[in-house]
């Protein structure tokens, strides 16, 4: 064995040398390998999104992240970790090191989830708020060849046929889920919630006829425009500009609007200068034309809150939705 080894060594040395030389040249040719490690950010940043690619959250966040990446001078890598209406991603984010190299999105779904069931985080306390940049718009959508032309027809059918309507959302504990639960309480309806990982899969399930309706953010937009799906109602305070014919729930006589928030957070204990750097970069990134275009395309209105405002808002939002859900008796252990 030893002799064989020696022979091999002699034989292969030339080639090993050649490969080493090649690697060396390749490495030297690649720029930026001798950077100083002190200044933040010194390396790529992971950006966790709790919904799959192709959903409204994801589509709008990506151009924002790219613009911020250019400003920060380091790659910001989007990591999609769907599940539990974003609660999975937020729970995982809580366990990350507060070094500023892993941040993510806290959407309203993850806030509401903590009041509707047991989750391993508290969105008001366990994180460092960085910035809010947008809100969601939601709507109730059915297939266009379904018998329900208006929201009222849909509700009447659901009342008359308990258990027949199955609706999909992007996860349990999302605002769009809460709205449906409130409608069910108000109109004494029994319908079935089927939570998916995100708005994309939920919309696909409706297109394939596996559910009767979806209660979702704007993933349905292009299908409603193409005439394949029908928008019955929206959950905002005002009608949507792109769909002026769809009434709000308020107009339909319900005192229901969907709470809404899309914000960027980090693990608890981010150093203030890191928060400043990130907040500065993302705030500037909100002016990026690609981001604004994506927001318009997906009907995701911009709404800015800085770190302090967001912190206050999160506490307030948690109190409000917490009380509401408690009073409705929707908390499940």
């Amino acid at each position, binding site marked *: 064995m030893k002799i064989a080894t020696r022979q091999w060594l002699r034989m*292969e040395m030339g080639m090993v040398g050649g490969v080493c030389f090649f690697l060396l040249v390749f490495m030297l040719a690649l720029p930026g390998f001798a950077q100083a490690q002190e200044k933040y950010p010194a390396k790529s940043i992971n950006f966790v999104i709790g919904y799959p*690619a*192709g959903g409204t959250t994801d589509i709008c966040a990506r151009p924002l992240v790219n613009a911020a990446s250019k400003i920060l001078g380091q790659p910001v890598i*989007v990591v*999609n970790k769907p599940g*539990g209406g974003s609660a999975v991603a937020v729970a995982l984010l809580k366990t990350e090191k507060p070094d500023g190299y892993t941040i993510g999105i806290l959407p309203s779904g993850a806030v509401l989830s903590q009041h509707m069931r047991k989750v391993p985080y508290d969105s008001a306390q366990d994180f460092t708020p960085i910035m809010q940049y947008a809100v969601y718009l939601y709507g109730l959508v059915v297939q266009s060849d379904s018998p329900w032309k208006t929201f009222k027809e849909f509700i009447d059918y659901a009342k008359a046929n308990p258990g027949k309507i199955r609706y999909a959302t992007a996860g349990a504990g999302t605002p769009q889920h809460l709205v449906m639960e409130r409608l069910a309480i108000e109109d004494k309806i029994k319908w079935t919630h089927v939570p998916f990982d995100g708005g994309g899969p939920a919309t696909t399930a409706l297109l*394939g006829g596996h*559910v009767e309706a979806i209660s979702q953010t704007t993933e349905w937009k292009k299908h409603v425009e193409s005439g394949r799906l029908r928008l019955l109602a929206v959950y905002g305070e005002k009608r949507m500009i792109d769909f002026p014919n769809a009434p709000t729930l308020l107009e339909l006589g319900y005192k229901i609007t969907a709470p809404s928030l899309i914000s960027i957070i980090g693990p608890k204990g981010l150093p203030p200068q890191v928060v400043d750097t990130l907040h500065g970069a993302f705030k500037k990134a909100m002016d990026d034309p690609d981001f604004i275009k994506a927001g318009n395309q997906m009907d995701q209105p911009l709404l800015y809150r800085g770190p302090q405002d967001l912190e206050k808002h999160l506490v307030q939002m948690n109190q409000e939705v917490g009380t509401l859900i408690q009073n409705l008796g929707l908390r499940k252990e």
Partner: protein
Amino acid sequence: MDYIQSIILGFQVALQWDNLLFCFIGVLIGTLVGVLPGLGPTAAISLLLPTTFHVTPVSAIIMLAGIYYGAMYGGSTTSILVNIPGEAASVVTCLDGYQMARKGRAGPALGISAFASFIAGTMGVIGLMLIAPPLAEMALKFGPPEYFSLMIMGLTILTFLASGPMWKALLMAAFGLFLGSIGLDSMTASARFTMDIVELSDGIGMVPAVMGLFGIAEVLLNVEHSIKRSVFETKILSLLPTLQDWKDSIWAIFRGTFIGFFLGVLPGGGAVISSFVSYAVEKKVSGSPEKFGTGMIQGVAGPEAANNAATGGAFIPLLTLGIPANSVMAILLGAMMIHGMQPGPMLIQEQPGLFWGAVTSMYIGNAMLLILNLPLIGLWVRILKVPYPILFPLILLFCLIGAYSLNNSVIEVLIMVGFGLLGYLFKKFEYEATPLILALVLGPMLEAALRRSLLLSAGSPLIFVTRPISGVLMLISFILLAYPLVPWLRRKREILPQVSDDE
């Protein structure tokens, strides 16, 4: 005519000098990350995404797609040479590819996998061009019950064809499902079996499990014999597949292509399931199924064709419905949107240059991969000439770094080492690890599909048999499960000789 015009348009785009260059860079990087375990195409594409900002959207998509199918190809190289699958889709390539390498036939194994990838990749692209829109519609018919039944069928086929008694294979699959359920529940985010270890919240990664069960366990088995024999034949018989190899594998390649393409269309694990199914089919149609696992070239050609054809298929839901079929497609979707394109039903009409340019570039890229990799076979095979006592610490180090760099976490390394020990014991007690891996990968998807199905049916398990597509898939699984019970004694006799023939 319409198609021909489109294809000409596509080639006009893809053959532009800079697009050719980006295509080449893409497949080169792809091959490299495929060869290095722990560094998957997902990570590579994420890291390189920012560098594509200043190029045109077409060039960016061409390069990123090149990384994807390049990595699919590169992944098989380490599977064949050192029994470490670079990604889940090349797990089955290990089974016979590595055995071929041990018999001095690493060259033909690498060669046939290059040709199979090329043939399947290009046929997948042609399929993508011809039947993208109707096939995408079909994918809509797959709701939660259909996915559940499909995954059950995948697992059943695999356990049916595993060597040894069926209860062992099924048991491994059940254990894999349990391992897959560790972490946060994907529907409620509550923690399961995490033992308060933070790293386990995200579940047990496929990569450390696979590297442990295959790579490390193999090293452990090899070192216990190292005095008796030198592990690899030093004589490399030939670098290219012989005529007989071609005869043996050409139909396997076509079958693999077919399976890969259609399963690749389905979102979620298409490439993985298709490679497993293809292996199972080859074993079934072969005249000598007992030789599988000892270095059958069909066992390399079929799955390699399948996972490469699946990459073509995976583009269909993305380009036609805007639904990413896997994480790489999700990043590509993001990349396309960064470049101002909205993948979906309108993409082909609105951006014909982009769609057809990207598709034809995949054809060119597959040819580049073949040209790039054939000369490299000689280089790869030389690795096998390294004496094992020197090679094995390098293999272990490779695995250790791969596991660590996933999340910069020691826990992942410990998980991998633990799976290495487990894999060693499985070998000793004659349990096959492949059903475990497939179940681990599919577990979370299977669970979500099961729970959604039961929500849809208000708790009635009948939903899996009353819906037509799901019912057919379930029937196939049932027949496979019931089959061994009928010729009870014959099967038992088959098992007995296998007990002692393990090296």
